[in-house]
Structure formats: C-alpha cells, structure tokens
C-alpha cells in the first residue's frame, strides 16, 4: 500500500522561521499566508514594496519577506502612491500593495483611500475588516455592525447614538479609477480558496496596469469578540455576511466604466 506524504511548505515570501504572533484564531495569519502564496505564484517578491499601516496589520513587516515601509495611521494609500509614482518617474515599475485594517482604511484614512481609488492609482489595497479596533482592545470601528457590542458601544451599536457602518468594498467599487473591488471571507476552506483567487486577480490587475484594485477581507477577532475561534467564524458566516456580503462589486473586465 502506498502512503502519500503531506508536506507543509512555507511560501518563499514569508520570512524564515516566522512564528505568527497574532491572537489564537485571528485570520491575519491566514490572510498574510495567502498574500505570500500569491506573491510567490506571480514571482512578485523581488519587485514588491509593501505598505504596512497602524493597528495589528502593521506587523506585516515581521512576517513578509519583501521590502516594507510603514505608514502613519490611515495614510497607507498615499504612501503607496508616492512609492509607485516615484519608481515610475525613475523608469522602473514596482509592485506596490497596502495591507491595512478597516479602521485604518475606512475611518482615519478614508480620504487617502478614496482619492487613491478615484485617481486610479495602479496599486492594490488589502483591507482586513474585523469590525473593530483590534490592537487597542476592541473599540467600535467604522465597520462595527448594528447591535455589535464593543468596549465603546457597551450596549451595542445603535443608529441614534453611533450611526451606521461603512460598506467599504461597495463604496470603492463606485470609483471610476477602480479596476477591481471585492469582499471575501476566511471562515471555511471554500472561502479561503476563493479569497486567494480574488487576491491573485487583484494583483494581476495591477500588473496589467488597470488601476486601483481592492480586496476587503472579512476576518475574525476572537479575542475582542470574546468568542472561541470556531464561534467567531460562525459569527462571520451567519451574521456578518448579511451586512457584508461576499461578492465582487466591480470587475472592470466584466463591466467597464461608462
């Protein structure tokens, strides 16, 4: 009888002997691994500059084995614009992507994010949406769902007191400069596979020079949600996807700008 060997390999774009320091059950590790796998498959590691921002996402440079620069909180898309344009002025084309949280991309940095999308900057932005400010201990963010309990919405988010959450991928899809805008999740194998395909497509669109590509990754934050990792994934599957549907909102190849 033949036995097949299961071999665990680490993507080349992840630093050697890396131990992810995220909380148990956090989806950041999965998201970063997918990014690394796609960088490997598209041979992008050597021509990439990644932009990390504030929050848990800033730890990117501890794990990814690519050139990285940190941006002030929220300004990742502006920093990416500078990196991309400066290389272009120097006659070289680099692959430039940001890795940000939802507070970073869609609250404090919404101006920089939206205008980079409107200008059609040829960069890719990845936004990890875990519906709260994770690093500071789970405060209400721009994406916290209606009714969600956080340390700054102790009785749950309500419209009278807190207003409504932002549906980032839908908003970005409205910008003419955008080539691709989609929301994915990581709560089961099927979704993880879909997420990787989506990240790959967004990266390929940048390589083709089609403009701003965007992926919102719906992610778990078990520590701050006060749930077990599997309960957190169930919450995404059963509750959050109602507010935040898993969908491609814009694909310029399918529906060109009018």
């Amino acid at each position, binding site marked *: 009888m033949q036995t097949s060997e299961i071999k665990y390999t680490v993507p080349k774009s992840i630093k050697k002997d890396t131990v992810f320091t995220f909380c148990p059950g956090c989806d950041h590790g999965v998201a970063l691994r997918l990014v690394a796998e796609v960088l490997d498959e598209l041979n992008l590691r*050597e021509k*990439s500059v990644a932009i990390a921002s504030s929050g848990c996402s800033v730890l990117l440079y501890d794990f990814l084995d690519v*050139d990285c*620069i940190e941006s*002030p909180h929220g300004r990742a898309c502006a*920093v990416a614009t*500078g990196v991309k*344009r400066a290389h272009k*002025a120097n006659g070289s084309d680099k692959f430039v992507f940001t890795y940000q949280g939802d507070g970073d991309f869609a609250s404090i940095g919404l101006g920089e994010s939206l205008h980079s999308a409107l200008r059609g900057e040829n960069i890719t932005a990845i936004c990890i949406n875990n519906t709260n400010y994770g690093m500071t201990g789970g405060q209400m963010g721009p994406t916290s769902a209606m009714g969600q309990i956080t340390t700054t919405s102790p009785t749950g988010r309500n419209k009278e007191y807190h207003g409504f959450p932002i549906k980032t991928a839908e908003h970005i899809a409205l910008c003419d400069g955008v080539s691709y805008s989609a929301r994915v999740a990581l709560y089961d194998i099927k979704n993880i596979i879909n997420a990787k395909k989506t990240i790959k497509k967004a990266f390929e669109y940048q390589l083709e020079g089609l403009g701003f590509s965007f992926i919102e990754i719906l992610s778990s934050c078990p520590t701050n949600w006060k749930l077990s990792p599997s309960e957190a994934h169930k919450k995404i599957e059963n509750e959050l996807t109602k507010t935040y549907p898993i969908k491609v909102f814009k694909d310029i190849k399918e529906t060109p700008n009018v």
Partner: protein
Amino acid sequence: MSEKELLKGNIAIARSALAAGCSCYFGYPITPQTEIGEFLSYEMPKRKLAYVCAESEIGAINMALGASATGAKVMVSSSSCAVSLMQEALSYIASDELPVVLVNVMRAGPGQGHIYPSQGDYNQAVIGGGNGDYKTIVLAPSSVQECVDMTFRAFYLSQKYRNPVILLLDGMLGQMAEPAIIKDNPYPETDNSSWVLNGANQRPAREIRSLEPNQNKLIRHIYEMNKKYKALEANETDWEEYQTQDADFILTAFGTMARSAKAVCNYYREKGIKCGLFRPKTLYPFPFERLRELTKTTKKFIDIEMNMGQMLRDVRLSILSNVQISFIGKPVGDWLSESEMIGAIDNIIKDCYANI
C-alpha cells in the same frame, strides 16, 4: 541657464528644484505658495516626473514619505496652517530618516490667519510641530538668489543626512521678483543604494519603520539620530555677519526682515553709530556659538522679527547674562518699515548716544 533673470521667489524655488534633480512633487493649493505647484504641474509631466495634486496636505506629505523611501528627490510645498497638517508625517519622516524637502512660504496665523506674509512659524519649524525627539534642518533665505541657492542646498542636506529639510520663507519673498541666477547643481549626488526600497532582489528584504516595540532598540535609534544632529550642528551651521567686528549694538534678524535690518545698519553707520547685523541662515542648526562669542565684545542686542518674538528665544539662549537684549516685532504682514525700526531702535539706544 546661468543667465541673470527677473525671478519670483516661488518660481525660483520650483525651477531650482528641477535643476537639483527633484523627480517627485506632491502638493495642495494654498496662498501664498501656489505658484510652486502650478509651475511644476506644467513642467513635471513634460519630463515624465511624478506630480500629484494631492487630496490634502496630509495626502501630499505621506506621498512624499513613500516617494523618498525609493531614494527619489522629493519636494512638498505649502504654507503655515497647512504645514500644521503635515506635522504627523514629518515626525515619521524624521524617525524613518528619509530625505524630504518641505517648503513653507509663511502666511499669517494663528489658525487660518490670512495671506499676509509672516515669520510666525519659526517655532513650529525649528522646535518641531510633530511628536518625539527629532530635529528638522531649517534654511531661511532672505533673497530670491538665496531661494535658489538654498533649494539646491536643501536637497543636498536632506540626502546627505537623510533628514527632512524645511525651506522657511515669508510670503513676501515667495511673491517678490528680483534678479537671480539659476546655475547647475553645485552639490555631489549621495549614494543611497544601501537603504532604498526597490524590491528585495539579490539582497535581504528591507524595512523602513518608526514603530519599535523593543525598548533598547528604540533608545539606540534615538541616540543614533542625536549623533546625526550633533554632526549637523558641527558642520552645517550657517550665518551672515554685517559690520559686527566693532559694533556697539547688533541687530539679529532672519529672512526678509534681515534685509530691512541691513538698511537700518547702514543708516546708523552713516551717523557714526556702530551698528552690526547678525543673520542666521540655518535656523536649525542655530549659530549659538558664534552669537555667544559676539557677546564678549558687544553688550547690546536687538532682535527684529515679523512675529511676537520667536527666534528671540534662541538669541536669548545664545547670550551671556550681562548682555541687554531688546525685541522689535510686528506679528503679521504689516511690514516693519525701516523708519519704524529706526524709531524703535532710537528708543532703545538713546541713553548711550547723545546725538539721537
């Protein structure tokens, strides 16, 4: 090039930036510096250089942060209340040790103030408006020719020391035209191949970051930055002296105010009164040592500024205790004329001179 031309300060800065090899400009309109961005919006695309009309000054300075990490020569220009918006990123740029040139064509403040010229941002530029232990090199031109020369120097110093440089001038100089010559870049290029971000090809990946959770590493980083500042203070401090050798009293002034002060100096010299002028050209590093030396022979100093006395603090810090320091200033735009200065100075020195 190399011909004498009638040039406006703002245009002189924009053209000198291009001559210095600036390949990226990011900006947002604000009076009285808008001509810099307008001129470059026309010139840079023609040369396939990076020009972005940013969504805000916050966007502009962060684009500069990213662009400078590639080793490019990067310039951002703005004015007073909008430079305030850039202070967060400026602190990051200083900690990241990135070369960015920021032009502040000062208008009146505080708050929105108005578009009148002012020197009200001395403190913000020199002491620093951002958080943490960092310094920004500050150059203060007083003529259009110096706008040219100091733009070249700003790019050179920013690359050499990997530090942000502020070119600090008031709105009058930005808007004023006078003859100047733009020559070729007099400074050598700096090798930045050891730190730029251009893809981890045939070398380990690099990171440029200010976040440092390891306390010892953070402490070391700040000590290293401080060593750089000591080198700057030792090597790059620059000033102009005018008839200070035998002066009974010395005027201290920077930027355009120093031009009026020089005329005032001449006025007193013609009357046989020994007046001198001391003009810092670098506001950081400030010429503390030279000014202190002068206090050994001159016992009266009069600081003149277009603000309520900001450089005055550094003048006081320079000077030994048995020296008299007076201040003449007006906060904004309402130009301190020579006759006003003379009136005020006469009052200060009248006890010493019988013929006033």
